[in-house]
């Protein structure tokens, strides 16, 4: 969510579907995005990278650091 979006008013995140939907019908896409950012949840273990060829497995922090190092070497070599 772009930081320049102002905080939005709206329903409680725990409000029932009908109440949230009634609000959503009255506001624009951008307004709903503002609300989403205001009430955003932190990243979870399901929000980390997957490297190609890993069979869809989330990469570990160590694997990712090694990946970044390899890629920076490749780029430095002009590859």
């Amino acid at each position: 969510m772009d930081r320049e979006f102002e905080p939005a008013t709206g329903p409680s995140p725990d409000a029932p579907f009908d109440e949230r939907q009634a609000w959503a019908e009255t506001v624009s896409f951008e307004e709903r995005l503002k609300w989403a950012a205001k009430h955003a949840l932190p990243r979870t273990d399901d929000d980390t990278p997957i490297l190609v060829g890993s069979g869809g497995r989330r990469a570990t922090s160590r694997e990712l650091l090694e990946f970044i190092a390899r890629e920076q070497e490749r780029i430095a070599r002009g590859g």
Partner: protein
Amino acid sequence: MIDALARHEVQYVIVGGWAAIQHGAVRRTDDLDICPEWSRANLDRLGATLRELGAELAISPSNTVPVPVIDGVLLSRMQIGTWQTRAGGFDILRGIPKTATSEARFEELSTRATTAEISGRAILVADLEDVVRSKRIADRPKDHEALPELDKLREAAAAARSRDAAFPSPPSQQLHQPPSPSTQPQPYRPRKGQQTHSLERVEERSLPELLPLARDYCEFNDVDPSDNELLALFRALIADPTHGGVQFLARDGDGRSVGFASLFWTWSTWATGRIGILGDLYVAPQARGTGIGEALIEACRTECRAHGARGLTWSTAKGNVRARALYERVGARSRVDWIDYWLDT
């Protein structure tokens, strides 16, 4: 982020939470998830976007690391890349789950995507069906949490489609008409209550409703192609909206199909880039004067912006005063000193 993506001319479709929100969901998310077109050139542009945004790779839920140089090759080696930028979370997905063993990528998603606007910029947003299917297959706890709401929205959309199908196409006639030519994709659906009509991108299921409108349009232009020829053209566009073009079908407030527009892609040296040609524009007589013509043009214009096209062009008969008034009204300007030519091939 949207501005930065536009500045770098990145081609992408929005998926994930933002897409769900565009379709009416009230979701809690700070992450922009996109499926970019997976070419080296586009990923290089995406890498430049990430650098501009000061992106760091999120290697765990609470830890990010800087990546000094981000090029297209590096991005292509991540099936999913999770980044943290100055503007928020930014996740880059090669595709979203289509089946347990396959994924839908940009090329497929864009043919069904809708067009939305953020900060005055047109963006492609994955179709609700694609979003729901991907979350069902991804099967993460937060996907489970999202699905009940998305299923309700999906049911509501299906009910609306059934209602539409209950109305046969109206007898239509000819109308404003720009000329001929080609197309490319994306649906545009004004939010309920804001307008009394709606537009949708033409898909296979739309063809029974599009065909009679196209027949009336052809009759007005004194040409008589067969139904099979017309359907072959429509299907060619549906099959390759990225290079061919897109068509939009307009419905009135009662859900009846009352008009269509065809947008075709081509290139222009003098415009130094891709441009759109408004090949066809038709509104049935009973629906004229209701703003549908303007909406169809605006949908094509929005589509051009989303596709990186520099402009939208078309031609019309000098004597078609009504159509010309519409074109002037939407801000188009004619080149009075130019003459159109046509050569049979």
